[in-house]
Structure formats: structure tokens, C-alpha cells
């Protein structure tokens, strides 16, 4: 979860400096613990969504699609707010960003659902799902980041 470590999100448009990376494992216990709790909550929320909106075999996996797109939008808002305005406790970012949102969204189910669709003779649905998730997820995180920065800039005036 590199993106969620503080040195990587150090302001708009800047990339992290490789030399500044921590190499020590000292003090990682509480971080690992909150990531575990957040991950459990995120995974449970995703499981709950799959129970409420089950996906039929050979159908477009709308539930996982929306889980991933919503997770991308929320991480965009969250990481802008937490790096620009909110002086939150140091465990808030690993808990919510790495844990909850990382556990909520999934790349493995995305890939394996495409594999299943292709394998079961629905390559077009698989390809549409592949492209639609990519486009929607990237658009969601981009729009969320841009919109949040705009709102914050407007509030500062």
C-alpha cells in the first residue's frame, strides 16, 4: 500500500522520494493491527454487498463493479482530505485507506470473474467488464481527487 504511506502523498503532483522510505519495521505493530481490523470490515462489507445483490452465472458482475468503482471514488476523496486538510491520527490512514478500502475493493475477483466469463463462453461480457471496470475506476478516482481539491480550495477562499 505504498500510496497510503505518508511520504508518497506529499502534496499535489509530487511523487515520493525513494531515498526517504522507511526501512525499519519498528513501531509497525499498531499499524498492522488497524490494517487487519480495517481489512476485515472492508471484506465483510463487500461480502454483504454480494449477498444483497448476488450476481448470476454468465451475467455482468455489477456488484463487484460498483464495489470497486465506489471504493476508488472514496479513496480519492479520503487521501486528498487526509493529506491536505485533516491532521488525523497516524493510524487513521492505514485503518481506512489501506485496511477498509483496500479490503473492500478487489482485483482478484475482478480477474477471476473475467476468466470465468471467457471460460464459460461469454468472452464479450468478459471483455466489456474488463474495460468498463478499468475506465470507471480510473475515472472515479480522478474525478474524486479533482472535485475534492476544488471544494477544499473554494472553502479556503
Amino acid at each position, binding site marked *: *500500500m*505504498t*500510496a*497510503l*504511506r505518508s511520504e*508518497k*502523498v506529499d502534496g*499535489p*503532483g509530487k*511523487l*515520493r522520494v*525513494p*531515498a526517504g*522510505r522507511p526501512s525499519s519495521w519498528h513501531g509497525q505493530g499498531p*499499524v*498492522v493491527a488497524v*490494517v*487487519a481490523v*480495517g*481489512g*476485515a470490515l*472492508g*471484506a*465483510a462489507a*463487500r*461480502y454483504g454487498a*454480494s449477498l444483497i445483490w448476488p450476481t448470476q452465472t454468465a451475467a455482468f458482475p455489477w456488484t463487484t463493479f460498483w464495489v*470497486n468503482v465506489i*471504493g*476508488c471514488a*472514496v*479513496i*480519492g476523496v479520503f487521501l486528498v482530505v487526509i493529506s491536505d486538510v485533516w491532521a488525523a491520527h497516524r493510524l487513521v490512514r*492505514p485503518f481506512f*485507506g*489501506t*485496511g477498509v*478500502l*483496500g*479490503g*473492500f*475493493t*478487489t*482485483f*482478484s*475477483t*475482478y*480477474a*477471476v470473474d*473475467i*476468466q*470465468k466469463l471467457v471460460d464459460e463462453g461469454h468472452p464479450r461480457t468478459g471483455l466489456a467488464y*474488463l474495460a468498463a*471496470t*478499468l475506465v470507471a*475506476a*480510473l475515472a*472515479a*478516482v480522478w474525478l474524486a*481527487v479533482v472535485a475534492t481539491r476544488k471544494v477544499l480550495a473554494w472553502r479556503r477562499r
Partner: protein
Amino acid sequence: MNWLLVIAGGMVGAPLRYLTDRAVQSRHATVFPWGTFTVNVIGCLILGTLAGAAAAGAASSHLQLLLGTGLCGALTTYSTFSYETLRLAEGGARFYAAVNVIASVVAGLGAAFVGVSVAEALWV
């Protein structure tokens, strides 16, 4: 019971992603997000194998909830993948952003197909 399995899997998968990412990111000096790439591809391989085993009747629904929905679901991430791609693009590394998208999808899908094939070879 089902919820507990998902929660237990998520409780292991998410910190495993965090620790793997930290370990991988401390071993290279490029802007490419190898850490997230690594966990996503490994998760696709495990979930592909599990899906193949399930199709062959070798994985119970409980195991699928624990390892699939819980562990692999939390080990892999779409939100960090998109966010890191955006950071690369915004930071001027548009080429790396495009490579990250293409490589993650190709390697993730490839790993899923390999996993299913391995499971079929083992259990069918």
C-alpha cells in the same frame, strides 16, 4: 459462520498486503508501484487456483469464503491500484501509469488463468 470466515480471511489478507507492499517497495528505487502489482498478481493466482479447485469439487464453500472472499479479496486491491496510477499520471510519469494499467491487467488475468489450469491439472 460465513461472516466469521470472511472476516478472518480479510483480517489476514489486508495486513499481508501492507507488509508485502512495504517489503517490495523498500527493495527498489523506481516510481513503479511494484508492491501493489505483486499482491494483486499473487492474489489472482491463489483465487484462480481456488476457483479451479471449487469447479472440480475440491474446495468447500467455507474454504472459498475464507480464502477467496476474505483472504484474496483483501490481499488484492483496486482502490490503491487506481490511486497509484493516477499519482503516476499526475506526477508526469504517464508512460509508467499506462504500463501499470496494462501490466496489472495482463499479469492478473494471466495469473488467474494459470491458477485455474494448475487446479484442473491437480484435481480434475
